């Protein structure tokens, strides 16, 4: 050991959405906390970058389950509790989504609000109202049941569940498509309702209804919002809160190893220069594959940990294109804030075509000016396009072909957008940036450039994860996870929730130990 620094009750590794939230929870409980971040900024994917006249949002499309100040959603409530709601300037996202499928089946703009959404669906698919209404009623029960489950930290009482959430339990083991079929929802309505699937990255044959339903109802019934200064504003607000609460945060400080004693109990975290920070509790805002594969002392990596980690499947690897355009959205004819452009509404077929870079033509595309006109200078607008690659196909790109390959995928995104919306944007490109799986691997260190954590499909879907929080954590006492690779899976809201949970549970661990 080179040098022994100050000891902390908790060391958080990774200042992403989950890690920052966890740190605040630890500090609010009066415990000491150090956040270690390998990059020179907080936020992980929640950041921004400047190019010329533009400041691009790196990843956030809209913050789900935020709600208005008067009717706050779970995330606004969480931000309120963390003490950061008022540090951030908020704007409301106008509409839910604009779904386009290039097989010409769908081109529909869906609004927020239960009534408006159901009305619009009835207009598009006459006769859909009863099943869509039933869907949302079921979703509401799902939401209530999950809130209960979170409140009891996964220790659910089965009798209580049966009494209060019987339909939740009945539907709980089925996929989205199975439930929508059971509700006798017209196929077209199912397709339109399924548009959000790419936000969870699993086709609807394999995605748990509980997972999808709880997300969709949060989107539709509670406003989505967005910080004015891109997600960097949230990250700096959380960072500032950590400092206010007396926490420490070190940048350019990747954790090298999590140290343990002979019994495998955590004793500290070492940095790459050898400095050791004594602690008994680590919250890792990173992939368990990385923590168990190369950070945790080998003697603490049990066969059970190895098997449980190897068993899991990486979800989508990220690819994004950012464009600063020298014409306004209005001049270019870009009307929507949020586009989902698929080849087909058949999510299984679509998922399979997304396994390969050259057959992937899916995009979730945002024109931020349509939610916040002042996000770029007068007479300009900015857009970001994202897709997921559902395999490690990107690893075949050689170093010298790397930049060309990025351009090729970006070119395809522009081509598809222009063709499907009729908006000609190519000549207006003033600034361009492209992020590939390599970029995501570089900045966040996630395996294969995965941005969605572990796939929440089949046996590893959200519900059993929630019910096994304690069991999963028992694999390695003193270590908990936060962020997209944690229990709640990926997405901003989920990452904040996972950080909230892991932060509070670690405080609970400290109490139990009598520390």
């Amino acid at each position: 050991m080179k040098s022994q620094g100050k000891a902390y009750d908790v060391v958080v590794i990774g200042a992403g959405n989950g890690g920052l939230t966890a740190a605040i929870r630890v500090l609010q409980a009066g415990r000491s906390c150090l956040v270690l971040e390998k990059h020179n900024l907080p936020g992980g994917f929640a950041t921004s970058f400047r190019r010329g006249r533009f400041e691009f949002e790196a990843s956030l499309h809209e913050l789900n389950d935020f709600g208005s100040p008067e009717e706050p959603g779970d995330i606004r409530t969480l931000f309120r509790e963390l003490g950061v709601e008022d540090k951030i300037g908020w704007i409301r996202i106008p509409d839910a989504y604009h779904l386009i499928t290039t097989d010409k089946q769908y081109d529909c703009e869906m609004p927020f609000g239960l009534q408006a959404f159901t009305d619009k669906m009835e207009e598009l698919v006459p006769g859909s109202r009863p099943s869509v209404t039933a869907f949302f009623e079921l979703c509401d029960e799902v939401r209530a049941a999950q809130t209960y489950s979170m409140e009891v930290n996964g220790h659910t009482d089965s009798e209580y569940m049966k009494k209060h959430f019987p339909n939740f339990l009945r539907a709980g083991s089925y996929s989205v498509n199975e439930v929508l079929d059971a509700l006798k929802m017209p196929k077209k309505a199912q397709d339109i309702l399924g548009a959000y699937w790419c936000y969870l990255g699993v086709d609807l044959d394999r995605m748990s209804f509980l997972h999808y339903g709880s997300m969709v109802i949060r989107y539709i019934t509670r406003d989505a919002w967005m910080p004015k200064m891109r997600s960097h504003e949230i990250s700096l607000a959380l960072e500032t809160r950590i400092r206010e609460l007396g926490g420490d945060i070190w940048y350019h400080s990747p954790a090298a190893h999590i140290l343990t004693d002979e019994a495998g109990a955590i004793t500290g975290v070492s940095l790459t220069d050898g400095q050791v920070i004594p602690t008994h509790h680590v919250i890792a805002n990173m992939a368990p594959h990385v923590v168990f594969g190369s950070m945790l002392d080998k003697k603490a990596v049990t066969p059970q940990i190895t098997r449980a980690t190897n068993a899991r499947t990486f979800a989508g690897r990220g690819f994004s294109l950012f464009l600063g355009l020298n014409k306004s959205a209005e001049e270019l004819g870009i009307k929507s804030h949020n586009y989902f452009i698929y080849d087909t509404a058949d999510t299984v077929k679509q998922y399979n075509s997304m396994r390969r870079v050259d057959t992937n033509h899916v995009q979730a595309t945002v024109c931020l000016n349509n939610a916040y006109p002042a996000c770029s200078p007068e007479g300009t607008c900015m857009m970001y396009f994202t897709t997921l690659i559902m395999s490690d196909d990107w690893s075949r790109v050689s170093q010298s072909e790397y930049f060309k390959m990025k351009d090729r995928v970006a070119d395809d995104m522009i081509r598809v957008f222009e063709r499907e919306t009729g908006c000609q944007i190519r000549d207006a490109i003033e600034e361009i940036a492209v992020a590939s799986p390599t970029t995501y691997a570089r900045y966040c260190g996630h395996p294969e450039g995965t941005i969605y954590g572990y796939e929440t499909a089949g046996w590893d879907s959200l519900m059993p994860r929630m019910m096994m929080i304690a069991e999963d954590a028992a694999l390695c006492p003193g270590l908990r996870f936060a962020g997209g690779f944690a229990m709640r899976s990926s997405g901003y809201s989920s990452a904040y929730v996972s950080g909230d949970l892991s932060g509070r549970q670690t405080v609970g661990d400290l109490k139990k130990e009598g520390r």
Partner: protein
Amino acid sequence: MKFKKQLFGFMDMLRFTKLVPNRRAALAAGADTPLPETWAVNEQARALHPGRMQVELTEVTPLTPRMAELVFRRVDGDAFPFFRAGQYVSLQGKVGDSVISRPYSIASSPRQALQNRLVLGVENAGFFSQYLTQEAKPGDRFVMTEPSGEFHYETLRDKKHIVGVAGGSGITPLLSMAQSALEGDEPYQMTLFYGARRAEDLAFRKELDALSEKGLKVIYVLSDEERPGYEHGFVSGELLSKYVPVQDVTYFLCGPKAMYEYLAGQMAPWHLPVKAVHKDATCCPSLSMDNPRTFTLTVHIRDKVFTVPAREDETLLTAMERAGIEAPNKCRAGGCGYCHSKWLGGDFQVAEGRDGRREADRKFGFVHPCVTYPLSDMELDVPPAE
């Protein structure tokens, strides 16, 4: 809700109770082979973005009375990363008790980088460059940051015909861009205007002549000398019009501030869109002022605290370097954000036109020390260099 009971069958509850046992069994059935320590894409990221590299100077050759060519090889890896022609590296060394670093555009091509060869053309114009051009010798070791910067061609943004305008040592990134296109890694056709005072001040003549034979169009422009085969004067709007369709090209300018200002005036009547003209950044200079005051700068790096003098005519980065503190930095022009640091107290000013901070950085009190001058005693929380 009436549908409740018909929704599924009597087995639903049983299915639900199986969720946990199923997951438990699947986790236990995972492979017992050791977990991977890395992945191909992560190795790709490491190869393309090695961060700080250890390099060795292998050759120093005078190019002009004021410029020298410095050739480096990487010693902590097999090769330099492939990069985008036009990018720069930051070279970092120690001179006396100071740590010092400067960004230099790469003159060699991305293909050569893969052969572990990286060339800089350094003009003797300051403290570090004087050391590099006159004192550094083969075998000397330095730290070099990975190639960075946005001064490069963008296939989806720029015209197929590009015009490079180089002033003095500004030839370096444009030489790399010209070579890269001829090596098939970039899709553009290039016309290069290279301005200098006299013919003897033109660097890389041999390389440029060789590229000319392969199709690069080069126009040499001398301001202080008239010579046959050379244009005389400055690179003006009229001169550009003589050789290229000025509305149908994308410009890449690299040279001193005076050249940018002159060209901006010359090109103004063409009403080009912002996207048509790219300028390489220049280092943020010290301010010229009489009797600059000296303040105290308190620097927190992790759990260490340093107190150093900071002159009001020099950037906070320079103050730290003078005191031997290795603070992170790359572009020294305000734009790359690599020196991003938390402001803890004191007054400051940001160099005019160089505030490259994000909006929220300004709101929550973050600064880029490479373009920030103190106006009082100050306190910063700075990340370590690595």
